[in-house]
């Protein structure tokens, strides 16, 4: 059978719902990975030894094992200890923490690269170490690290397809479901790809906006 794209409009609502889920999960997980990345970085660099240890374990789990396994663990595993999360929440947490660990690596390097005169100048004015980090050091580190974090967020978008395995009807799974009914894999996978591409473009646009707003040459 030949290609027939005219079938698409009939199933567009299912696909668009999938787009909605993909965008929602990606944005929520991106925010979590950003805030979590800063928190992990600060803990890794400044927390006392005892507090650092559980976070090193989290870091190891999220960096050293497949994301798929992490999603299974959060969605199916946690139920056993009484934490029954909706699938999309489990997906957001899994993706968010996974990428928080990667963002944390970037942010740590950037924090250490901020000139130590900055911390000194802030301390001389009477700021405590935490205040100096919050007002002076971290904002500069985060600015320096926006482009590579942007790359991580694109990877996050692509990996968001993995949450389909715990049953979230995001874009990839929606396409699959439509294909199950129509037996038109080519058309709907291409359509899904096109939507990923558009979301990608939007994310790049947002990143450029952010960069332009906050990037300040030293």
């Amino acid at each position, binding site marked *: 059978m030949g290609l027939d794209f005219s079938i698409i409009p009939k199933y567009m609502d299912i696909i668009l719902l999938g787009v909605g889920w993909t965008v929602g999960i990606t944005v929520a997980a991106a925010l979590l990975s950003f805030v979590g990345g800063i928190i992990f970085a600060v803990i890794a660099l400044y927390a006392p030894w005892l507090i650092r240890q559980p976070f090193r374990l989290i870091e190891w789990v999220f960096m050293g094992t497949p994301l798929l396994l992490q999603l299974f663990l959060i969605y199916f595993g946690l139920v056993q200890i009484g934490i029954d999360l909706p699938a999309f929440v489990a997906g957001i947490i899994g993706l968010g923490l996974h990428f928080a660990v990667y963002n944390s690596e970037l942010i740590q390097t950037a924090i250490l690269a901020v000139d130590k005169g900055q911390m000194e100048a802030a301390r001389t004015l*009477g700021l405590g170490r935490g205040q100096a980090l919050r007002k002076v050091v971290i904002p500069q580190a985060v600015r320096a690290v926006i482009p590579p974090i942007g790359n991580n967020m694109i990877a996050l978008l692509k990996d968001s397809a993995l949450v389909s395995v715990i049953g979230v009807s995001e874009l990839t799974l929606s396409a699959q479901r439509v294909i199950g009914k129509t037996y038109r894999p080519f058309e709907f996978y291409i359509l899904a790809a096109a939507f990923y591409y558009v979301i990608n473009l939007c994310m790049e646009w947002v990143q450029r906006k952010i960069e332009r707003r906050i990037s300040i*040459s030293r």
Partner: protein
Amino acid sequence: MTEQTHFVEIRHAQKSFGALEVLKDISLNVERGQIVGIIGSSGSGKSTLLRAINDLDPLTGGEIWLDGVQVNKTLPHRQYEKHINEMRQNVGMVFQHFNLFPHMTARENVTMAPKLLKGLSQADVDKLAEEQLDKVGMLERIDYYPSQLSGGQKQRVAIARALAMKPKLMLFDEATSALDPELVEEVNLVMKKLAEEHMTMIIVTHEMDFAASVCDRVLFMDKGVVVEEGPPSVLFKNPTQDRTREFLRKHIEGAS
């Protein structure tokens, strides 16, 4: 120990970095409104002494007193942090490389700390920024970022930032030595203005002319000790120590 009788009192300051002894039993008093210059060759410990006063480089021995309070007193960690943060609000510091916050405008550089630490209202904060930047002649550049300013302008903003905390004492660590020669004067003028307002200042400098013109007293440091001190008219014209004479000969010839 005995009660403090001077505005700034440094008693038997000793500082080592590992095995390297950088300050060797330095004692120094500064009165309110006095301007003290510190000169000496590279590595003699000038910066370390200055940085000990606000505890950026904590002493390994001796005491620092400021206006009746011991800066480096022994306290449990948390209390010490609180104490030192309060002490530092009274001591402005100006660095060789300015250390302005690059992600903040001149206005934000000046107001960030007072806003955070003194809880001023927005109106007070705006007034403060304008007042302090006007004082250093940078009012027109109030909303510029450091990257948009020349070295001299950056240093003037850095001075305004320190002054905005209303310090009782100002420390200058070679405030002009990173500047192009033609930009030195604008910063020196600001410091002279502070001198006229009787700000208490300790100034590490390699500019002998400037030290001679603003300082009430000048100290010559070498290898972690104060070799000689006195009013500039005496120290520069009739030094008693060979080391001082040698240093001055090199520097005054080198400069002119």
